[in-house]
């Protein structure tokens, strides 16, 4: 556990706070992404968003990431200044690794891209090797953290299994030590066993660092088991939310507890009521 979080020299409050009121997204072709969404996410919260495909949940996530502009409403972050400084990590549905880079080079990419904005420690004499060595060290720390073996660090994506690729992708999202981690149906392409394992990995990383996590999924069980709050979306509207008041880590007996099952039912009911 030691190591991964300690490279950052600037002290940054763990977790990002998000406040949105009356948020709407309308696309150029006239279709609606979502409408009039009010949302408050506390610092360090683990929030799940569920809903059928096309309900606007991925669009909402892209808005939070600054990848999609809004048509109306206000959105604020605390600490402010969202994406550009590596304050956000994003895990896509696919691993989306660069095939010409090996595992550690893929993980180091955000460090290269945010070099100017993040204020990396300067080495004496401004040698080029300094930052590169530091990037390598940080990338490797995170690769270890997500469960890769040393021998895999120099493997290219096509030499890694699907689960490994996803782990690399998670390490890449976390390498800038972001205040908020956004996950867009991150494990939907993986089999059930891997899905559970990676879910546990995300949970462990969250418990360890307490950064804000927003995870979009269409798997109700996954959402309830991992999140503190589950938001239910349908047809561009936020239909309601379910609080999941269970202790972490949620594995073993807790994952099968009646309370968790009850929460899953509540989420299902909300979805059904919304006509999904």
């Amino acid at each position, binding site marked *: 556990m030691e190591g991964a979080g300690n490279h950052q020299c600037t002290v940054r409050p763990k977790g990002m706070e998000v406040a949105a009121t009356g948020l709407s997204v309308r696309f150029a072709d006239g279709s609606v992404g979502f409408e009039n969404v009010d949302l408050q996410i506390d610092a360090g919260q683990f929030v799940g968003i569920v809903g059928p495909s096309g309900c606007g949940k991925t669009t909402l996530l892209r808005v939070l990431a600054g990848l999609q502009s809004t048509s109306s409403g206000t959105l604020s972050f605390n600490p402010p200044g969202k994406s550009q400084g590596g304050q*956000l990590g994003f895990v896509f549905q696919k691993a989306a690794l*660069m095939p*010409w880079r090996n595992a550690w080079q893929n993980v180091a990419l955000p460090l290269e891209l945010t070099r100017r904005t993040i204020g990396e420690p300067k080495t004496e004499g401004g040698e080029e090797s300094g930052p590169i060595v530091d990037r390598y060290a940080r990338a490797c720390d995170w690769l270890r953290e997500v469960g890769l073996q040393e021998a895999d660090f120099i493997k*290219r994506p096509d030499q890694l299994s699907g689960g490994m690729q996803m782990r690399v992708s998670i390490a890449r999202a976390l390498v800038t030590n972001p205040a908020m981690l956004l996950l867009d149906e991150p494990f939907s392409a993986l089999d059930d066993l891997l899905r559970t394992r990676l879910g546990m990995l995300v949970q462990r990383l969250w418990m360890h660092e307490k950064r804000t996590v927003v995870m979009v999924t269409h798997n109700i069980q996954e959402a309830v088991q991992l999140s503190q709050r589950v938001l239910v979306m349908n047809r561009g509207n936020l239909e309601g939310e379910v609080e999941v008041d269970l202790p972490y880590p949620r594995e073993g007996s807790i994952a099968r507890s009646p309370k968790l099952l009850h929460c899953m039912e509540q989420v299902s009911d909300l979805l059904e009521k919304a006509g999904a």
Partner: protein
Amino acid sequence: MKGGGRHLGGLILPVVLVATIVVFCWEAIIWAGDIHRVLLPRPLEVVRDAWEQRRALLLGCMMTGWAAIAGLTASILLGTTIGIVFSQFRRVRVGFFPYVMFLQTVPIIGIAPLLVTWSGYEFRTVVYVVVIISLFPIINSVTTGLMATEPQLKDLFRLYGAGRIRTLLKLRLPAAVPYMLVGVRTSGGLAVIGAIVGDFFIGFGGQHDGLGTLMLSWLNQQRTASLIAAMFASAVVGLVLYGLVNLIAVTLLKRWNRVFDA
């Protein structure tokens, strides 16, 4: 890639067998049809002429090969630059692409005389002909490759505030390499054709004795056996260039996860 030695016998044997059959039929046709040696010389005569003209043929191969390589290299540099501009500026692409298509559609035989008029009976003219014939596939593949970048990776670069240039250098260009190599492979074959066509128009007595030049002079002297030898020599130049391009492509693509079906 594995077990090359084991497969070699299995690969070479059929090829040799086909060659033997072709030579046998060739002889048989001459023997049966009593064909004059100006029309179709015997295989042995072709070999003899090729040996006698080995110096001229070798020099011709080198001249033509150099022109093809120089032209192809220029095409790669020029085509990649144009592809980058096209991918970055939509208006430029829309405005210029029809004219680039012109490069593809105009017969090289139609342009070559003009080029000789403008640039003279020299090596560089042959290179120009090669550039014109081999440029389009590279522009096309580089532009396509640069614009086919995975959307999620583009999002990732936006997320970290990467500008246009950085996205181009670190993402779009490397992602376009497999596309570009497909274009280069097509252009490699065209380059040899362009070089020989260029030789033809420059003709004998200029500064340049390429394979096309040799062919033209032997055609005038009705030395059919030498002509056939020159034809095989040009095929060898084409094969060598193709092999060279493929070797570079496969080596480069080892870093990319796309399989290059050579």
